[in-house]
């Protein structure tokens, strides 16, 4: 009878080990499922991110193209406007303001495209050009119309005006296309950031799951070791008791 209790202890240890094995098996299965699901999620999100970045690049190129077209068209319109003002006569103030506005606008545009001046300086030149143009327009609208001096100047004025209007129309269309492409580029960047964030979250879930499985494995090894010690101890004790009983 004396060996019953130690044997019972060993049985309990074996039962505990079996339970631990069950738990470990369930954790491993759950961990593997999580890793599988999150790996699929991460792959999909990374693919979405790649597509979004690709789209952003394409939109940036389109935007750059249309902005160049708009920029050239605006310069043509400004040159036509200055030529029209100079040929059609009018007050010195209006001509000077128009020429100054045009020169500042074209100068700022060229300087910006060629990186000749600081961005703030270019913006200042643009503002100055806009003010001069605005002043010339306002003054002309309120106080006078430039008089024609000859039939030639009238025709030149007409051609310059129509070229200016046409160029502005092209600039408006190209500028609209460029800005819309730029907004789509920004949207694509937002999509890419969103997809990247989700992919990172999936990666974190995978890392966490693997870490949990590793921890579970360590715990299982520790428990198995402890139970082995208990069993070994039981076996020794049983041997000793049997030997003692035999005398």
């Amino acid at each position, binding site marked *: 009878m004396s060996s019953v209790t130690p044997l019972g202890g060993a049985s309990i240890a074996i039962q505990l080990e079996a339970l631990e094995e069950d738990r470990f098996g369930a954790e491993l299965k759950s961990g593997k499922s999580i890793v599988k699901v999150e790996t699929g999620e991460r792959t999909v999100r990374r693919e979405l991110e790649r597509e979004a970045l690709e789209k952003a690049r394409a939109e940036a190129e389109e935007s750059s193209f249309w902005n160049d077209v708009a920029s050239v068209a605006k310069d043509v319109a400004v040159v036509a406007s200055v030529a029209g003002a100079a040929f059609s006569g009018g007050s010195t103030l209006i001509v000077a303001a128009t020429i100054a506005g045009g020169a500042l606008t074209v100068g700022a545009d060229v300087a910006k495209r060629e990186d000749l001046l600081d961005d703030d300086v270019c913006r200042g030149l643009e503002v100055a*050009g806009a003010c001069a*143009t605005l002043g010339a327009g306002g003054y*002309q609208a309120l106080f006078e119309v430039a008089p024609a001096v000859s039939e030639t100047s009238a025709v030149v004025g007409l051609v310059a005006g129509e070229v200016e209007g046409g160029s502005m129309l092209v600039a408006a269309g190209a500028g609209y296309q460029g800005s819309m492409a730029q907004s789509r580029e920004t949207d694509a960047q937002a999509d890419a950031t969103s997809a990247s964030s989700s992919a990172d979250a999936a990666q974190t879930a995978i890392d966490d799951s693997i870490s949990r499985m590793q921890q579970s494995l360590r715990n299982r090894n520790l428990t198995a070791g402890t139970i082995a010690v208990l069993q070994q101890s039981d076996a020794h004790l049983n041997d000793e008791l049997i030997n003692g009983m035999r005398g």
Partner: protein
Amino acid sequence: MATIHGATSLATEIAMLEVSADDASYTAEGKIRDAERAAQRELERRQISELREKASTMRRHALVDGGLQLASAAGTATAAFAQYKADVAKIAGCENPTAVRNATLCGGGAKLMDGGTKVSDLAFGSVETDHETASLEWSHEADAAKDRAERASRAAQRVETESDQKLGIVQEMLRSDADLVHTLITRS
């Protein structure tokens, strides 16, 4: 025997207390990591929101700018034609007051629209820059939160490893204790 056994028990108890402290530390680091991850997600959400706002502003800008430029282009072309008619009438020795008025209004209006385009560029440009700056700020803060979450995660793993080592020591002490008991029983 009692003294030796008591000392081992005490050491085991101390080690178990250490393991409990490690558990508490692990839980705390885990909470910090989870909080920082949540903060990172929120900051990334704000960054994305700012980018969407920027895109939306750009679309509005494109519409306003396109409309103003279109009006300016139409005004310029109309003014040029009206001015030509006025000039031709003047050269012929008569007046065309309607053409003169049209040229004045359309020309001036076109130039005002053109100026307005530049004003709208500046106004919308400033809003777009604000959104971009905010987006960059949220992005930097999200990166910082990610770093903090990773630090907390590493700290939690370190605590976990140390706790495992302590448990291993406890196990070794138990084994040693059992061996000692067996030896003493055998000798007695």
